[in-house]
């Protein structure tokens, strides 16, 4: 218990700093756009409707989807920039998060600026004209001061929204307090989840109170309160951001990981080896499957582990299955040729999609293979992870065996196993290296038609690091050195309910058990 709390606390300076930088930048940018736009909307009925409708529309997009949408848009923009100016930019991390959060912060500020300026008593506006103010003087000396309390209330709402939504920037590769929540959810580290929630709620609350002080000062025309609130905000932001002065210098290497325990462990394993070789290492965790490969090809991460079948079907769009070695050889040649990506080698184990059932249930129904399953499927519920049903592997299996389930449900991997043991699902899309298969005594169904491609875990290296001696010599010893039993054991120590280990500790155990080829 205490160990997890200390681990969380140790990460706080970096996570908090990025969270503050991100939400403050988004809020400032949002205010710089929405306040003038809101004032303009208050003046012109023709502008008001489209502007407010657009901001409301943005608000209806789930914030996670909004963040995810910016990745492909920026990727395309970056490609265009490479084509025109010869220089691209990072489509991952800070930029997509900033843009999405900026859009997200706009509605309350826009709406309140329009309402505040539009709501100024017409008699006061007439008086401002009557005493001889120019339209600009009227705006700055009369309308804005009178609308200020309402505008500040909008800024306050926007700040709370933005700080909350910034936790969702983790999956697009931006470090934030959301790292606690996503990593904690994945490894069932509830202390991390609670810690992340508490930290972001605390930050939102603090910002809200300080902005409230400014708002009260503006409302009651007390300059002291405005100054105190603004100074508090500035000081707090500066304090929170100071750790970045040291984190800020670019790490020599960035190691990536997708969003499940095995990926965290392997990223820690690679990072530890690089650090022992004297390098600075950054981790970018919780990347989506497609995001990870594109980020590597673009050089935003230097190395990560992917699986041959995933690359074969999703990246190369192949639907055939020529066998384990042929897939590996094909990938090595084709990824190099197409993207300049180096396939360093297979780690020595497979993490294939595997259809798993509870042992007692499989025996009772007489199911041992996918062919048997197809006969029983119309009476069964299939539980999958969040992406499996939209992957080509599923299409291949579905077509090969004619699988038609009574129901299909998607879960976070952790909850998928719970659903199986609790009877909410009869079959799940498990992973063959998952420690819970052995621990829960699950039966893995055979695939007589070979519809599921092989999934050898392979280390991928970005094009710009393909000739980097330090990186290659640190990672080369991992090739062929991790047996599936060692990986299952390590995965289980992170996934189990009791005496959980952190991915970094589990990685040390894997390091000790490395097989020398």
């Amino acid at each position, binding site marked *: 218990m205490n160990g997890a709390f200390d681990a969380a606390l140790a990460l706080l300076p970096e996570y908090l700093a990025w969270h503050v930088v991100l939400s403050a930048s988004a809020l400032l940018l949002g205010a710089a756009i929405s306040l003038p736009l809101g004032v303009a909307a208050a003046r012109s009925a023709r502008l008001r409707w489209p502007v407010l409708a657009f901001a409301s529309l943005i608000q209806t997009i789930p914030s996670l989807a909004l963040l995810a949408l910016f990745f492909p848009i920026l990727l395309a923009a970056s490609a265009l920039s490479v084509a025109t100016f010869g220089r691209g930019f990072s489509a991952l991390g800070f930029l997509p998060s900033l843009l999405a959060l900026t859009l997200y912060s706009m509605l309350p500020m826009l709406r309140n600026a329009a309402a505040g300026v539009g709501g100024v008593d017409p*008699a006061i506006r*007439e008086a401002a*004209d*009557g*005493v*001889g*103010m120019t339209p600009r003087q009227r705006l700055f000396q*009369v309308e804005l001061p*009178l609308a200020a309390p309402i505008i500040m209330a909008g800024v306050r709402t926007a700040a709370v929204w933005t700080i909350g939504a910034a936790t969702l920037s983790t999956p697009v590769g931006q470090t934030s307090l959301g790292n606690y929540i996503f990593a904690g959810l994945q490894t069932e580290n509830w202390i991390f989840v609670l810690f992340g929630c508490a930290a972001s709620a605390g930050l939102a609350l603090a910002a809200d109170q300080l902005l409230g002080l400014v708002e009260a000062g503006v409302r009651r025309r007390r300059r002291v309160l405005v100054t105190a609130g603004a100074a508090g905000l500035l000081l707090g932001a500066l304090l929170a951001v100071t750790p970045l002065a040291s984190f800020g210098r670019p790490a020599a290497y960035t190691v990536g990981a997708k969003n499940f325990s095995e990926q965290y462990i392997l990223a820690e394993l690679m990072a530890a080896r690089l650090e022992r070789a004297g390098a600075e290492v950054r981790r970018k965790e919780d990347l989506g499957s497609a995001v990870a490969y594109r980020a590597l090809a673009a050089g935003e991460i230097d190395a990560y582990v992917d699986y041959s079948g995933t690359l074969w079907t999703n990246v190369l769009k192949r639907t055939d299955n020529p066998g384990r070695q042929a897939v590996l050889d094909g990938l090595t040649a084709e990824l190099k040729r197409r993207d300049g990506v180096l396939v360093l080698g297979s780690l020595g184990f497979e993490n294939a999609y595997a259809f798993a059932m509870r042992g007692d249930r499989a025996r009772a129904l007489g199911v041992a293979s996918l062919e048997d399953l197809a006969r029983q499927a119309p009476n069964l519920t299939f539980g999958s992870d969040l992406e499996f049903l939209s992957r080509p592997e599923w299409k291949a299996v579905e077509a090969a065996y004619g699988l038609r389930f009574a129901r299909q449900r998607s879960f976070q991997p952790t909850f998928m196993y719970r659903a199986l043991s609790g009877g909410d699902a009869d079959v799940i899309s498990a992973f063959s290296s998952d420690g819970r298969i052995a621990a829960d005594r699950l039966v893995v169904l055979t695939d007589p038609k070979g519809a599921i491609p092989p999934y050898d875990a392979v280390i991928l290296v970005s094009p710009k690091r393909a000739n980097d001696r330090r990186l290659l010599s640190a990672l080369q010893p991992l090739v062929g050195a991790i047996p599936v039993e060692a990986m299952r054991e390590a995965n289980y120590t992170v996934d189990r309910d009791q005496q959980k280990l952190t991915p970094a500790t589990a990685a040390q155990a894997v390091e000790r058990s490395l097989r020398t080829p």
Partner: protein
Amino acid sequence: MGAMVQLDRVEKRYGAHAALAGVSLTLEAGEFVALVGGSGSGKTTLLKTINRLLLPDTGVVRVEGRDYATAPPHQLRRRIGYVFQEVGLFPHLTVAENVAVTPKLLGWDAGRRAARVDELLDLVALPREVAQRSPDALSGGQRQRVGVARALAAEPKLMLMDEPFGALDPLTRDQLGSDYRALHERLGLTTVLVTHDMAEAVLLADRIVVLQAGRILADGAPAALLASSTDPDVRGLLEAPKRQAERLHARLGGPA
């Protein structure tokens, strides 16, 4: 003294409705003119074309002989005092800041502004302590006194007043009206007062202009209008306060 304001065939339309249907009018410097008429007669529209809060569709408005049609309107407005029924004091400024707003726009220094605020508070018979108060802390009558002081702050020669005392109780209204009339004399102002109350017009103004449906129905000194006008509407308007005064006298008694 020359003409302070000249309107030459001024028209203002809202769709099919003519608020001003070709009005020509000359106001001499030093005059106290009341614009009288029912609602929709065009009296407020006429007043606002003078300081260009409303722009005429056709026709020319001259102030002190100059046509400001192509000049920025704020230059003209800073030379004209404007007082209206809702007062429109700026609630985020103190009384002193409200009074000094036009001098500040004109670039007067702080010392000159402060001296002017004191002078004006004396002039409109407000204690100097109110200078640092918020407008919310004042009574309705005090607020309109501040409104008059603000209008006078930059030493205009022309004052435009749109039902300035309309929202006040009768006693305050009477007091403020006669106080203002005294200021008009003392400062040598030209005043245009819009009112729907003929009694107020008769009591304060030297000249009454009666408007109806955007046209001038009658124009003259109060007594002359009553003596010479043959228009039944004008006579009705003028006789009403007279009859009322006689009835009041009869019911309340007093020296005949």
